[in-house]
């Protein structure tokens, strides 16, 4: 059954990419190729669910493709199935969304290219988790990277898109090369097949193990967006079309998580717990960095991109914790760590795709991507607003939505870890817990700011004032992840029971989970009953609404807001996105390193007549400045130095001949 599903999925993606280019009419190409993409995604989802439920894994080999590297080898196991189903789950709404979202590109080749690449991108993402040897993995990995790069630069006229694409492509290729090196070392002298590597990995020396782990973390971390190799992410995600941003954030970066888990927990032998500690620390730092930038950024899609960085950090707490616990011998907690990570992967995939789709609708409707230019969209785009609110609340990790459930699990994980292990972790886990709590709090700030500034109050520009609601297809597409947010929030056991199976397959049995509505975990002394909380919330809220409606003695009067004595309310007096984040920017000055530049425009008659004051405030991208700018500078320096070799003087060139001859003769003598 799942083989058929895979065949259908791949055939659909192939058909989608071909029809996008070949279909005679533009609208037809869009409809047909996106319908194919949708079918493919549903098939991928079916594949994933089927394997997760039945637990049947299978392999498929072809010697004809990629022959020199050992052929194509596919294997679906529960872990792979889970990630394939994430691709399907987020790809399906994105396909529907694109039907309406990209209608205006029907005329040109660009639209067709976007649809074709979208299908290729989906196919690549489906194949990455299924790869069972290095050749297939790397090939699918690069297809995914290249197609998403092309999608990022598919609108090169957009400000910053080429630069974003460049960052992305170079960093992803660096990751690819690290991956290649890691796999080659891991395989030692055996074939580059995962089963063989798994069997032989025990023979690796600890030093080689360390190098492999570092290379793999660099590679998968850069795909996932771990600090400090995250810098491409906040650039590339906003530049892509929104349905692609959604997929990149929801599914593609998750494949970095997949790779990490596959390599660290499946292919490699048990590692020293310190790697776990390092990974945990890395995750926490990533989460903090992501959330702090997401709270201060004013570009809507970049806010979301940084929030992806944040959530990736939270997800990586799981594997880090699991490594740590496995190292300390607590298999159940280790399993729980992975389950929580996978669960948050799912939750984030769902709510972040919802948010990116909503952001696309907003940018599409209001023709701006800056929060500062929005406002009041709730009136012009009521449905999008509701759906976005669901995503925002999930992002803020409040009950009864899915973000809260995984947040709660992460807290429980850290508390349980702190209770069950050696005092060596006495500082580490409490600090991690505190950091995660701070991240949760700041995420709430970011969520309120995002929704409040974009949708509430008065429109700040004409674009926002004349915004139009998204077409029905786009709204329908957003409805699916919104419902998923709610369902996963209310009945988390639905997914969690499957995830325990995934983790058991990795040799980390967690024990049977209670499949009831309440969430009861082993080694955790408390439980959560989301449905009951939701019912309580709904009941109390309805009562409150009824009270406010029935008790009042006078009719409701609509009037202008009190605005400190000013008569006419204007958007200029509204709080801006930058102002909203100002207190936090002050608190975390050391992190943001803000720069302020005040210019006062005075009347020529007297300096006391001030005509205007301009304040430009920005924060220094110090991570880029300290880590990447020197690298670029070094590359340029080296390039200029080697350029000096090419002076154009034929005499110098000729002199190199005898020089090379004598040098090689010397080397020859030395070898002898």
């Amino acid at each position, binding site marked *: 059954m799942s083989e058929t599903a895979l065949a259908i999925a791949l055939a659909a993606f192939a058909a989608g990419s071909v029809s996008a280019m070949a279909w005679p009419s533009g609208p037809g190409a869009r409809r047909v190729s996106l319908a194919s993409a949708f079918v493919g995604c549903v098939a991928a989802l079916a594949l994933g669910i089927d394997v997760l439920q039945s637990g049947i894994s299978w392999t498929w080999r072809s010697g004809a493709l990629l022959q020199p590297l050992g052929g194509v080898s596919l294997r679906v196991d529960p872990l792979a199935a889970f990630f394939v189903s994430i691709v399907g789950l987020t790809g399906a709404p994105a396909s529907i969304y694109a039907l309406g979202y990209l209608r205006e590109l029907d005329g040109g080749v660009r639209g067709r290219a976007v649809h074709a690449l979208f299908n290729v991108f989906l196919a690549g993402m489906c194949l990455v988790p299924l790869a069972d040897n290095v050749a297939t993995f790397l090939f699918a990995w690069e297809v995914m990277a290249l197609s998403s790069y092309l999608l990022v630069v598919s609108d090169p006229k957009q400000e910053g898109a080429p630069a974003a694409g460049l960052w992305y492509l170079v960093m992803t290729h660096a990751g690819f090369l690290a991956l290649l090196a890691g796999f080659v070392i891991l395989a030692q002298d055996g074939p580059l097949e995962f089963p063989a590597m798994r069997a032989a990995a025990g023979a690796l020396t600890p030093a080689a193990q360390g190098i492999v782990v570092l290379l793999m973390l660099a590679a998968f971390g850069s795909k996932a967006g771990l600090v400090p190799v995250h810098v491409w992410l906040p650039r590339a995600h906003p530049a892509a079309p929104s349905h692609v941003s959604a997929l990149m954030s929801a599914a593609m970066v998750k494949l970095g998580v997949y790779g990490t888990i596959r390599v660290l927990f499946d292919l490699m032998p048990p590692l020293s717990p310190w790697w776990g500690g390092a990974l945990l620390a890395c995750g926490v730092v990533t989460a903090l960095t992501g959330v702090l930038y997401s709270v201060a950024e004013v570009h809507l899609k970049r806010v979301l991109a940084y929030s992806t960085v944040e959530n990736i950090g939270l997800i990586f707490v799981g594997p880090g914790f699991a490594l740590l616990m496995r190292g300390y011998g607590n298999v159940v907690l280790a399993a729980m760590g992975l389950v929580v990570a996978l669960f948050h992967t799912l939750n984030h995939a769902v709510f972040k795709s919802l948010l990116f789709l909503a952001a696309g609708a907003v940018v599409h409707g209001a023709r701006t991507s800056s929060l500062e230019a929005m406002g009041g969209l709730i009136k012009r785009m009521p449905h999008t607003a509701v759906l976005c609110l669901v995503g925002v609340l999930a992002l803020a990790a409040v009950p009864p939505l899915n973000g809260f459930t995984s947040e709660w699990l992460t807290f429980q994980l850290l508390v349980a870890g702190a209770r069950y292990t050696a005092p060596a972790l006495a500082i580490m886990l409490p600090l991690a817990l505190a950091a995660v709590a701070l991240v949760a709090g700041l995420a709430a700030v970011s969520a309120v700011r995002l929704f409040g500034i974009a949708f509430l109050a008065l429109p700040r520009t004409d674009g926002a004032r004349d915004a139009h609601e998204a077409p029905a297809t786009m709204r329908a597409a957003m409805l699916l992840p919104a419902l998923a947010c709610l369902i996963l929030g209310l009945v988390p056991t639905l997914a969690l029971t499957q995830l325990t199976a995934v983790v058991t397959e990795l040799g980390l049995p967690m024990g049977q989970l209670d499949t009831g509505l309440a969430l009861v975990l082993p080694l955790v002394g408390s439980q959560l009953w989301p449905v009951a909380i939701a019912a309580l919330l709904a009941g109390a809220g309805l009562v409150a609404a009824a009270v406010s409606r029935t008790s009042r003695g006078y009719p409701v009067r609509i009037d202008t807001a009190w605005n400190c004595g000013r008569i006419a309310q204007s958007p200029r007096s509204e709080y801006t996105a930058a102002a909203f984040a100002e207190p936090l920017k002050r608190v975390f000055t050391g992190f943001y390193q803000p720069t302020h530049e005040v210019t006062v425009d005075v009347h020529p008659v007297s300096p006391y007549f001030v005509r205007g004051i301009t304040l430009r405030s920005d924060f220094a991208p110090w991570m880029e400045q300290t880590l990447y700018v020197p690298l670029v500078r070094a590359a340029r320096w080296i390039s200029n130095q080697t350029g000096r070799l090419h002076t154009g003087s034929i*005499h110098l060139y*000729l*002199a190199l*001949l*005898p020089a090379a*001859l*004598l040098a090689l*003769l010397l080397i020859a003598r030395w070898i002898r």
Partner: protein
Amino acid sequence: MDATFSRLTMTGASAMLLLALVVMWRHHVPAYVTAFRMQSVALAFVGAVVAWLGDVPELFLVAALILGLKGWIVPRILAGMEARRPGERELHPLVNTEMSLLISGGLAVAAYEISRPLAAVVSLPTRGGLPIALALILVSLFIVVSRRRVIAQIVGFLMLENGIALLALLGAYGVPLVVELGVFLDVLLGVLVMQALVPGIEEISAG
């Protein structure tokens, strides 16, 4: 017999190296061309000696070709190139004469060092000239590198070819005839193509 053979080839080879060294302190292009012509004659002489005393009759043909091509046609082409060129005939090498000679001496020593294994393997009576041939190769390379004028460089390059031919003659009584003929063709074509390009190049380096 072998002693004579050895002495004659050594004489020819030494003359060739000497001619390469001689151009170091000459400052006029025609002198370069003349040196090359004489060197080619010396090469032809060595070829003839090897053909005669080494009993390789087809080398007479090679020697004749050397004499005709490198001793007559190529020098004429070079002289023609130089004659057509306006302006001064003086050469200003990148490395001055004293230094050039010192470096050439060093290269000759290096050639002896490099060719030691060769001398140890080859048992022909002509083997004594092998270091000289290698020295000629290195010195010609140095001429190519250090002379500023294009024609001087071409002469250096041709001397390099002579050096290699000498190496082949002394080391193995010449390479197979088909290869030898191919080499001659290449030299001729190469010089012709260079001749086509040189005026433009001289213009560029002058301007």
